[in-house]
């Protein structure tokens, strides 16, 4: 115990540097890399604070914090979108929080049409089947949906594998291969925007042995065009509903 005195006197501080945080001072400058952290940290702290307070007051939904999307009355959104754009237009609705995005096609390449929204999100569709999303968060990076597409467009019951590419937390590609069955559900008439057509509703049940299960729906016209769909994207996103308006 006699060494305790020496220990206490000789001990020296460890040092730890944390680049600028906590202060609510605004960072400014032309060097974006340097100013980014304090700015984002400020937003982050605000986010944490509001999350904590909402936890204390009420059970909040995690989806409330999704950026660049807005909850809106669907009919108003449809009218506004149609008025704003002369060409093709898709309403893309995130099922979990009903956030609505209007997207227009900006490029066609390698059999896929990439649609983009004003908030910087995009979806890529092949014959109406989503094969990629960007900017949605927890994106679908790529999908091998060839057999699914053929069967859906032909309105033909079938069984096949579908492969989904996602990113893991460290940024690696992870492949999810699901077993799917496509069945004819019912027929109904679809009237929305400038679309007014009979459609067969195709139901696609997919499952992976690890417990991931989802159910996609496609409203398919006799021409093979998908007039409306509900498609699973990833565990984080859940389902997107794609509703063409023209």
């Amino acid at each position, binding site marked *: 115990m006699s060494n305790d005195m020496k220990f*206490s006197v000789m001990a020296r501080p460890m040092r730890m540097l944390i680049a600028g945080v906590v202060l609510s001072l605004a960072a400014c400058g032309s060097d974006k890399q340097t100013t980014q952290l304090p700015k984002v940290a400020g937003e982050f702290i605000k986010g944490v604070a509001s999350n904590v307070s909402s936890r204390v007051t009420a059970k909040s939904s995690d989806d409330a914090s999704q950026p660049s999307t807005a909850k809106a009355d669907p009919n108003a959104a449809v009218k506004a979108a149609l008025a704003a754009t002369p060409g093709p237009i898709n309403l893309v609705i995130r099922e979990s929080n009903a956030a609505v995005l209007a997207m227009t096609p900006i490029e066609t390449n390698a059999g896929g049409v990439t649609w983009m929204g004003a908030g910087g999100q995009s979806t890529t569709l092949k014959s109406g089947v989503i094969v990629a999303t960007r900017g*949605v968060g927890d994106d679908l990076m790529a999908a091998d949906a060839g057999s699914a597409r053929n069967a859906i467009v032909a309105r033909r019951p079938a069984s096949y594998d579908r492969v989904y590419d996602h990113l893991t937390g460290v*940024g690696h590609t992870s492949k999810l291969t699901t077993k799917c069955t496509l069945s004819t559900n019912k027929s109904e008439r679809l009237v929305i925007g400038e679309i007014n057509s009979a459609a067969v509703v195709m139901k696609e049940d997919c499952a992976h042995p690890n417990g991931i299960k989802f159910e996609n729906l496609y409203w398919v016209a006799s021409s093979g065009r998908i007039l409306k769909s509900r498609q699973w994207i990833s565990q984080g996103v859940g389902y997107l509903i794609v509703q063409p308006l023209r």
Partner: protein
Amino acid sequence: MRARISTSLAIGVLASLMPIGGVAEVGTVTTSYNISGLPGLVDLPTAEVAPDGEFVLSFGSFGPHARGAMTFQATPRITASFRYTKMRDFGGGGAYDYFDRSFDVRFRLLNESKYLPAVSVGLNDFIGTGVYSSEYVVATKSFLDNRLRVTGGLGWGRLGSRDPIGSLSGVRPPWDYGEGGTLSASQWFKGDFAPFGGLSYQVNDKLTFKAEYSSDAYLRESEVGIVELNSPLNFMVDYKWSQTTNLSLFYLYGDMIGGQLTFSFNPKRPASRTGFEAAPLPVKPRAATGWDKEWINDASNKSDLQKILADAFAKDGQRLQGMALTSTDVEIQIQNKKYNSPAQAVGRAARLLTRVMPPSVGVFRITLVDNGVPMSTVVARRSDIEALEHSSANEIFERAQIVEANASNDEMVLTPGEYPKFSWAITPYAELSLFDPDNPIRSEFGIRASAKYEITPGFVLSGAVAQSIWGDVGVGEASPSLLQPVRSHRLIYARDGDPAIEHLTASWYTRLGKNMYGRVTAGYLEPMFGGVSAEVLWKPVDSRLALGAEVNWVKQRDYNQLFGFQDYSVATGHLSAYYDLGSGFGATVHAGRYLVGDWGATFALDRKFDNGWEVGAFATFTDVSAEQFGEGSFDKGIHVTIPLEWALGQPSRGKSVTKIHSLSRDGGARLDVDGRLYDWVSDGHGDALASRWGKFWR
């Protein structure tokens, strides 16, 4: 004319770096921690492990104890922990507060099977002063679908101090720790051993109850009178408040109640959801016609294309440093200012090129540049970019090539307006100084102004001034030292440097030839030293090994950190080797002369995750004796790098680098110059590209 496609890289080498799945898990995993901050019961260990890569910070208090611990599941089997404890009125037989640092390590020997338990062996406080020195062998078996876990073990040292049932090799030898910091190996598993055990029951996803019988008699604490042991039984309720936060309450030895907060992070589980950055502009396929090459004959076409491209890059958060264009082949030099994944920067660049380049340009050579220096080039056929846009990232990886960048391309045209470039920033800063015995947490807040003037590619003037607004880092007395106080007067620097010129330098970065990089930095290099620093690095683009050499002549700066110097000057420098051990581990050795003129070597071992997380430990041994060095005997510590993209969910190349020296003293101290070559060159090479390739199409 540079239409040739280089084939100098064996793609197989890089393909072998592509991730092919996680490390094998070992089972019997928990995210419930004991009061030492390790997976365990209440005060005692179990054979459980945390999930691989889990990084845990815990803060707790019980009776006269206050603790902070940092625990890392370094591999699926190895758990390592560093802990700081304050014991009120324990020092000097009750005269003053006592502060203790300890390192713990645990190794999973056997994994749990249908009939047999998991078995681990551990060492507590095995370097240092040994207040908590103990060793144990422990077994844990799971029941009821992992909800109930039963643990039993044998402890030595502290953990063999209550009702021992036997002893190994007679009496435990006393431990003379001297200045501390040395292994207490002569004591391990010697002397009395005693049994301990307990139960943990997970009621639901949130709530876990634990109870244990402890074999720690708290002899020294009882002797001093700060703890009164009434019972060997301890109890804990652990509540999982969120994915990252646990709150536990406990009742110890019939005497103390306490609570602990635990924050767990995992490099594999980003703190924020990622992928919200704006979608890239898609690939624009070429039309069937218009493939003639006549456009190249009009020089204005080239400069127009470069301007359009430069604007597009600026919008994407990148910089087009230069472009070399022929009718069939384009090389662009890009400075990625935004994306943690260099492959993401390259993938976006490739798509932009499809939207700008005339159809006859069929080969894209995209060169990553940092500090003006070209590092590696990704070569891709335009037709592959067009065909594989909606395919898995692995497919374009197989078609593209990653080669060393051309050090000098005569055709390269600098983008007009890129140089000279001035940039500046004013930001708040916070600084934390931990574990001072008088005041374990010191902090400082202030404002930092920085500016950078890039005159030509690779030639940069840079400076930063900091003004503290509030803080107590510079309060108190600087520690006495038997050596030149190259680091131990940090406190005086903090007190007198107000405002402080943190650095003010001219730097020159360049390629010195094949696989060779160079740097010269002159001026006020760091808060405590100024002078000249020169470095060379040999690093092939696809090599696991890199070698470096650095020489510096530096003079110690005045405490006020303005322009003056003290009398002390020294020539210092190191030879360095960097080696990728595979499986996510990297080793580094720096051997040479340190700031007090001492000779020796620094060894570092890091676990590296592909998103940029690094957790490692380092130790420096020099010819400064333990007595001269003072407490701790030699310099050692922990290093944690956290990519901001992981933490904040926004694309960023920024990272938070934290280096914790167990004691910041003068022996084995290295110069802290900015822009060391390996730090950024390795981020622009094959391994960084390959390991983050998944975001090529992001």
